């Protein structure tokens, strides 16, 4: 399957002279973006790329695994895998305090988080394809999520929706399907590595 994934990226970018392409991982805070980014990065490069935490907005800048080297069809490709800060409409430093973080540090984190959200929003113009990941235990039909999907659709950027955390008993991935019926949805557990092969199969089948 890893071979197929590499072939996918090869097919995606073969027609372009610019081989340095970007795959963005978008979604709300704590959806599992960094866990998934680490899984893909490990598969492609053998290395993780992001810190993972239960604290919201752990990823506060765009984390990049740049120029991940992929050899396929007799040529070498380079891609940039982009783990985006979670996009939300509000960042309250008090939410960090609830996780045991001191007030001064919480205020600093909140400031960084707002900058990260702006950075992630600006990248909506620059990515070449997107994985949009949702926590399957949460209601996915929010204005923020609709806004992210709508902006990607407006630019005809290929989207694969990922319903994450299906290892949890309260997961309801069908809500993700109902919220975004216009896009393919893959159900995974990035943490447990569950159905990651299916994710790669969908990428190959839908985006190539």
């Amino acid at each position, binding site marked *: 399957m890893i071979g197929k994934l590499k072939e996918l990226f090869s097919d995606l970018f073969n027609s372009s002279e610019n081989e340095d392409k970007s795959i963005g991982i978008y979604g709300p805070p704590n959806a599992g973006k960094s866990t998934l980014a680490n899984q893909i990065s490990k598969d492609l490069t053998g290395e993780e790329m992001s810190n993972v935490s239960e604290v919201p907005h752990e990823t506060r800048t765009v984390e990049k695994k740049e120029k991940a080297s992929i050899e396929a069809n007799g040529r070498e490709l380079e891609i940039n895998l982009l783990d985006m800060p979670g*996009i*939300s*409409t*509000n*960042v*309250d*430093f*008090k939410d960090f305090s609830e996780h045991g973080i001191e007030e001064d540090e919480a*205020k600093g984190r*909140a*400031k960084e988080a*707002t*900058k990260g*959200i*702006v950075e992630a*929003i*600006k990248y*909506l113009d620059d990515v070449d394809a997107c994985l949009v990941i949702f926590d399957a235990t949460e*209601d996915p*039909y*929010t*204005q*923020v999520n*609709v*806004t992210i*999907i*709508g*902006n990607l*659709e*407006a630019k005809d950027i290929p989207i694969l929706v990922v319903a994450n955390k299906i290892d949890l008993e309260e997961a309801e991935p069908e809500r993700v399907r109902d919220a*975004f*019926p*216009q896009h393919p949805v893959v159900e995974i557990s990035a943490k447990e590595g569950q159905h990651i092969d299916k994710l790669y199969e969908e990428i190959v089948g839908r985006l190539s």
Partner: protein
Amino acid sequence: MSDDGVTIEFLSREKLSENDFSDKIETVLEKVRNDAVLVLEEAWTPQEKRDLIESSMKQVDEDFPGVEFMGLNAEPSKINRAKRMFFSKIFNEDHRRGLTIVGNSRVMEKIKEERDSVSFLAKLEEA
């Protein structure tokens, strides 16, 4: 937020059409920072909602954590988007039919959204 409760302000489509979108966002954020909840008689596009998120993030500080917003007539499908573009060209601003609700996130909570209905709880006390 006043001592008596939350101010909910309704802005008509005609009033909203007086300003360009960047001025509109500035006005909205100014009112929302003062804890008003605004009900706008128009739908916003995904690009405009993106601009709202970006602009509000730039204003976040210790006293203002950001916004919550809801929209009726949020249409994610390509078919509906194409319809809106069509009607927009034929009937000018008709694609703006709908509602957008914006408020301070410390005021609005327990938001419930469906495709054809939205609701929220306005908090009456300071967090």
